[in-house]
């Protein structure tokens, strides 16, 4: 099988989380990814795109989907032109606390770190570039 790249640009509006998820799911479908991998990629899209909508101030966001078909791995690159923000710098929440003591902040990015096989951030000029890698098997 071939390696390939697809990309999509959407306005920074919450409802476009659906557009992005459908784009990625339908693009990956021919590779027969595991339902778990697809669900976890969906969660990553939800967390990362909603962060862009909430905090970046960017009018839109580009998602680049790279697939390495030989090792069945997807790389998703989220690019926005908003304020510089590295979510990986956020302190991980204490997941051992009781319900009453729990703070919910930072849970989304923590979840992404846990369920993806790799997460990276870099600032390039005016761009926030966040990349996640996930094995599809």
């Amino acid at each position: 099988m071939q390696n390939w790249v697809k990309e999509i640009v959407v306005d920074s509006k919450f409802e476009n989380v659906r557009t992005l998820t459908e784009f990625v799911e339908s693009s990956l479908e021919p590779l027969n990814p595991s339902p778990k991998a697809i669900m976890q990629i969906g969660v990553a899209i939800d967390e990362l795109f909603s962060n862009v909508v909430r905090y970046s101030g960017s009018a839109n966001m580009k998602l680049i989907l790279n697939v390495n078909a030989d090792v069945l791995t997807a790389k998703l690159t989220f690019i926005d032109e908003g304020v510089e923000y590295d979510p990986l710098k956020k302190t991980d929440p204490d997941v051992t606390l009781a319900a009453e003591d729990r703070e919910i902040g930072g849970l989304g990015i923590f979840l992404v770190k846990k369920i993806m096989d790799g997460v990276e951030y870099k600032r390039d000029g005016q761009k926030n570039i966040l990349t996640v890698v996930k094995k599809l098997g």
Partner: protein
Amino acid sequence: MKIEKNVDGSNTSFALEGRLDTMTAPLLESEIQGKLDGVTALEFDFAKLSYISSAGLRVLLSAQKIMNKQGKMTIKNVCDEIKEIFEVTGFSDILTVV
């Protein structure tokens, strides 16, 4: 997402269908906030829920905090994928999955 609510005396149950995410979590939040007065048993049925993100976890946490004061809360028919989300976030220690 579809939310089906059943009230039987002081027992309330919600059957959720679809995705509990950024888009839909506010719907469930509005069904819970200020609407659990007198409820002593709250149950969620996740049989048809395929997906949960941190926005959904946030709503479950606020429901759990309310029910810790006034009764019990349980979640049934949780699929393995969602169970894993509960586990990595430590929510499996907070929530009662039956």
